[in-house]
């Protein structure tokens, strides 16, 4: 089998006259964790529903694990573990009962089913709640049940629609860790609004806006593409003038520009140092401040982060 696990070609979906997705083309390789980013209604969920054969695209097609979504939807579904948005589970069922159901539906029987159950319960740390009804569980645990049902048949591809939304930071961190763990052996696509998640969890980012793919890159390359790092330096004012300070830092490394940030508060002076290249100037800035007898109160590196890029890409895309 080739290493391309998901291949989407010109996927297009119209709801009535509204185009939810237009000519989305992308590939995901074995072992990648790909983050699907985009504002609400951009087409993330639509793409996922098409890949899982819940809805059919109006145009284009896709292959998942070698099977075509039109020709063999059952094979596609067999290769996928899917967690839809908002984790829809049968809340009246017990956790174990539900996982058993999910396993059976994926063709597991007897000892295979028992082994699968044991494995996912352990992987998702559900041991303490298997006897509870799903309706009684907290959101974090429900999410784990959702992941467990998606994992029980050890699918090569996992599709997770906003797996971290609505969780508190601790729960989100746990789920994130779990997904990273899972992503070592499998291909994962997950959608999210949370850019920090993508930076830590994903090896590649697809940004989608108004139904179009506007970026397909690694989080680092995306960040690099958008702009250089800047260093924000906070100094005690004492009796230095802004001009003195600028002079001190303009000789640092290969600093290109030094600007005073507008509203320095009383007793503080804030300047921004922008290097010519992508160099990390923090050490040099520190030494320059010390030798010029400046008291350094703060030093912060600010890259243009994913958030800025995301905003750029998704707001100008329509123009």
């Amino acid at each position: 089998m080739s290493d391309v696990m998901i291949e989407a070609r010109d996927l297009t979906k119209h709801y009535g006259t509204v185009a939810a997705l237009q000519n989305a083309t992308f590939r995901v390789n074995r072992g990648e964790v790909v983050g699907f980013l985009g504002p609400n209604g951009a087409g993330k969920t639509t793409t996922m529903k098409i890949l899982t054969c819940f809805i059919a695209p109006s145009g284009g097609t896709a292959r998942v694990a070698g099977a075509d979504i039109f020709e063999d939807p059952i094979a596609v579904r067999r290769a996928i573990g899917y967690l839809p948005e908002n984790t829809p589970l049968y809340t009246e069922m017990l956790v174990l009962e539900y996982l058993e159901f999910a396993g059976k539906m994926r063709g597991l029987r007897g000892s295979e089913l028992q082994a699968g159950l044991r494995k996912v319960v352990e992987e998702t740390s559900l041991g303490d709640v298997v006897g509870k009804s799903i309706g009684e569980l907290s959101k974090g645990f429900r999410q784990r049940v959702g992941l467990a049902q998606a994992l029980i048949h050890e699918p090569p591809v996992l599709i997770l629609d906003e797996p971290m939304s609505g969780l508190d930071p601790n729960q989100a961190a746990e789920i994130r860790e779990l997904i990273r763990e899972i992503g070592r052996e499998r291909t994962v696509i997950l959608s999210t609004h949370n850019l920090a998640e993508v930076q830590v969890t994903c090896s590649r980012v697809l940004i989608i806006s108004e139904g179009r793919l506007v970026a397909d890159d690694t989080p680092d390359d995306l960040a690099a593409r958008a702009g250089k790092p800047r260093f924000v330096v906070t100094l005690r004012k004492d009796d230095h003038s802004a001009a003195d300070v600028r002079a001190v830092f303009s000789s640092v490394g290969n600093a290109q520009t030094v600007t005073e940030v507008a509203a320095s508060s009383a007793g503080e002076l804030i300047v921004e140092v922008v290097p010519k290249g992508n160099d990390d100037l923090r050490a040099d800035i520190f030494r320059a401040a010390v030798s010029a007898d400046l008291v350094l109160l703060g030093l912060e590196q600010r890259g243009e982060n994913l958030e800025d890029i995301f905003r750029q890409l998704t707001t100008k895309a329509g123009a």
Partner: protein
Amino acid sequence: MRNILTIGGRQFRSYFNGPVAYIVICIVMLTLGFFFWKTFFLFGRASAREMFRWLSLILVFALPALTMGLLAEEKRTGTIELLITMPVTEAQVIVGKFFGVLGLYSILLVLTVPYPISVSTLGDLDWGPVWSGYLGLFLQGSAVLALGLMASSWTSNQLIALFVALTLSVFFWVLDKLLALLPSGAASALEWMSFDYHFQSMARGVIDLRDLLFFFSVTLFALAVAFRALESRRWS
């Protein structure tokens, strides 16, 4: 087939995890008991005919409560998405759900068996019409349940599914009682479409292939429509 049984089994068990199954069973048994024994001793006959007459009417009202959530609730909560994206076909989902509710209905029918048994202790009961009556009830119930499933496939609102299913099942049950109002040609066609017309002959002990085929056809037709409705979401 395995998928169908897994889906049906889950559906069947989930009825007992919630109140619906218990409520419907209680209401059916209580109303049946009330109507049946109220007149039983007036007739002074050891016959279960009256039980079937009442039961067929009560079930026409009660069964839609079992089917209203079958698909509507799954659509409302989104669980249908998880179900359909497992390796199953739409047809398996529909048939599985139908078997699940049919299983519960069978239990309901079994629970009424004490009625003919107690009648038989009071007099000389002819068991032939009892068994054919049960067959008739089972088939008529299948048709009502299939119609209910069909109604449930059209909406994500259980109440709408309930009212549509009630309207349909009551309509088909009551058809042969409206005949006096109609010209004779239309009347015999409508009579033939009535549930009660086919059921009553079975309750008398007559098993006619045409009655069986009628109920089979209605059931299959309704299931096919539900299948189409479920499948149409892919292309919407």
